[in-house]
């Protein structure tokens, strides 16, 4: 950990859509500092036009995502004492998204994909007019609802990280979490399996768990969201027993197995 008062070298990417370079800044370290504090110090003292997104500074809003020493992280939750003293710390924008300026990238891909998800559609209410759900039934979905949309999982996902061409056909881990949250919501009645199977590109994912590794909310994206969705898709579209059962009975729908991780 850098001693309080010692100088830290920050190597920050400066540039825009036309390209850029890393620039070095010397900043005095203070106790408990996080990377975002240091970026703010640079803004206040050396580079007032250094572009960075941030809001809550407490790991809740997911605005300050960047690649710190090559790893996608929330800058507000990355303590400076995480790094070996004396070595420069590089801060770069998320690589998967087009750069706008400095640490700010164009995240519109994620918002476009979110629009394509069919809305929540609850079934009828209970006879007494209430909505009854039990804690054990909502625990899993609440895990998905912890998502702060920092898009670290999206930036680290190798399907799109260096493959711009895959973006139109692939929704990414964030959207799989969203789809899983809707699919496993006790009240929801919308059918999204066709979308999950086709447009969202779930099949592209080969469960390397990179997304799970970087999730600041510790959501088990691969195990609890993606794999159960894959299982549902397989059951719905590729299970020979189900296929035969449908041929024999003429029924379209089958009761899907309850998946839980």
């Amino acid at each position, binding site marked *: 950990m850098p001693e309080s008062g010692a100088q830290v070298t920050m190597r920050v990417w400066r540039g*825009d859509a036309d390209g850029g370079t890393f620039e070095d800044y010397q900043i005095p370290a*203070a*106790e*408990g*500092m*996080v990377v975002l*504090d240091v970026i703010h110090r640079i*803004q*206040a*003292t050396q580079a*007032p*036009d*250094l*572009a*960075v*997104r*941030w*809001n*809550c*500074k*407490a*790991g*809740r*809003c*997911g*605005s300050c995502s960047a690649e710190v020493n090559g790893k996608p992280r929330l800058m507000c*939750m990355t*303590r400076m004492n995480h790094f070996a003293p004396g070595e420069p710390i590089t801060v770069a924008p998320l690589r998967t998204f087009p750069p*706008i*300026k*400095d640490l*700010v990238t164009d*995240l519109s891909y994620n*918002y476009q994909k*979110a*629009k394509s*998800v069919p*809305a*929540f559609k*609850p079934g009828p209410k209970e006879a007494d007019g*209430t*909505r*009854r*759900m*039990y*804690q054990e039934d*909502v625990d899993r*979905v*609440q895990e998905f*609802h*912890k*998502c*702060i*949309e920092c898009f670290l999982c999206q930036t680290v996902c190798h399907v799109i990280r260096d493959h711009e061409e895959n973006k139109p056909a692939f929704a990414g881990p964030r959207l799989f979490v969203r789809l899983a949250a*809707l699919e496993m*919501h006790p*009240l*929801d009645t919308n059918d999204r399996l066709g979308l999950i199977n086709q447009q969202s590109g779930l099949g592209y994912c080969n469960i390397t768990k990179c997304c799970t590794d970087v999730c600041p909310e510790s959501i088990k994206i691969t195990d609890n969201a993606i794999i159960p969705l894959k299982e549902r898709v397989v059951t719905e579209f590729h299970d020979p027993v189900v296929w035969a059962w449908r041929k024999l009975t003429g029924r379209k729908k089958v009761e899907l197995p309850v998946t839980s991780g």
Partner: protein
Amino acid sequence: MSVEDRFETHEYDVIVVGAGGAGLRAAIEASAQGAKTALVCKSLLGKAHTVMAEGGIAAALRNVWKEDGWDVHFRDTMRGGKLLNNWRMAQIHAQEAPDRVLELEEWGALFDRTKEGLILQRDFGGHRYARLAHVGDRTGLEMIRTLQQHAVHKGIDVYMECTIQRLLTDDGRVSGACGYWRESGKLILFKSRAVVLATGGIGKIYQITSNSWEYTGDGMAMGLDVGADLIDMEMVQFHPTGMVWPPSVRGILVTEGVRGDGGTLKNSEGRRFMFDYVPDFFRAETAETEEEADAWYADKTKRRTPDLLPRDEVARAINTEVKAGRGSPHGGVFLDIASRRDPEYIRRRLPSMYQQFRELADVDITKEAMEVGPTCHYQMGGLRVEADTAATTVPGLFAAGEVAAGLHGANRLGGNSLSDLVVFGRRAGLHAAEYALAQSVVPAVDDGQVKATTSAMLAPFETVGGQNPYTLHADLEACMQNLVGIIRTESELEQALDEIGQLRERLARVSVQGNRQYNPGWHLTLDLHCARIRPGESPVQPGLATHPRPALDADRRRGCHSLGDRAQGESRRAHPRRLPGPRSCLRPRERRDAPRRRRDARLPGAPA
């Protein structure tokens, strides 16, 4: 060439400025009424400060305590606000909050559940019964995400990272707004029949604050510019429990849910000091012994623990303890839940707090006490609105959420903010749409207003003055923190006004480096202008950085506004016990002159 040809121009029935809970709810409602609606926000969608709300949303759902009801919630809200509240707003809020919470559930929100499968409610400061629907300690995230995802499918146009600088008017009516894209710095013009302001508060003028950069009082300033009234601007709430260590995280919020779930405040002597700070106003309903206080969590016939007094009382008590030398090593007090609840319970109920302290302060809250101290959190004051319609005094201008004043009086109760957002967000959207659709013509845009805004926006690029906007902002924060804090004195308030006057002169000399593309230095400069320390303006302008002025009126000493030389609640006038009548809807001066009600009505739900 008119301004509409020169700048990107859009036309809407209603534009909503701000995309937190209130803005999203207003946009959803306006759109549902058939109005063509745009939502404009400074950050990306879903990042507004609502996301930081932790403890819960207050609504008398009666899932946990059948004894609860809207009247008890109303009473708690009024008493928490030291009866400065607009009673009609408090009534509407208490009556409609349960419907709005259930509506969120209809839209997919998943609150924690009771054993019967209904929405679980938790205890919070100033609430007589466990009343806060919640999701662990991340209720705001659940709420904003639910609203955001609901809004996405409603055909609302969203303008993200777009800052509105000024409202436009035509013959006294709102005719639109103009601002700039943060990404490109280019001007954008909205023509609209109605505008809903949902821009939040002013917290970023304090050094120690739980608020993000966005909280620069934009809505209050813009409303004031077009003739709307501001009221109760001196009422700034300091949340009693913010982090105090390490320095870089100072001010980050520690949810009141820690105390709601059993945590207690202790001083360096290990004493639960809140028992020493129970004001007369709350004595009848507050426990006197630790045994009674601890029993209250399960038995609501007992009296409430003083740890859960309203926030103004707790913040003042902590302030006093620290000044008396009984604070923690880093200038706070201790908040202890580790010794009172088991680790599994703490991690389940307070997952974000657990993570926040572990990662930012190396403290395991299941094993040791947290160090906490007051942090600027919320402004009760703001634009004066009509209770039923959320309309300001300017035709076509509506306001909801923190930017609007009245509901919370002199002090907001925890949990009443999220319910405020959805109750009055909906009403603002509804009435803005009704107003807009009743207008036959789109009001005209005044080229002069747009040109004046543009030239003011671009002026800092031309200025050669050498002032750094970040330094100026830091000096403003220091001034407010040191001179206009929890306990205020007249001499310090006068000094603050002087210093703000000097800052105002320096602001004219701020130079901006770089170009217009995503330039935070320029954005901050414009936000400081919005903060009403604008050169040449009179210091009595009761805008953002000048709330010391109304604070000097000692008659308004109550709730979150304490003058140091006199104890709160010393005089009957400072704590009127009467059921407030329409007087509370009036401006301070009108209120002083209006006849007082004689009836000494007891409020509903008061303990016998």
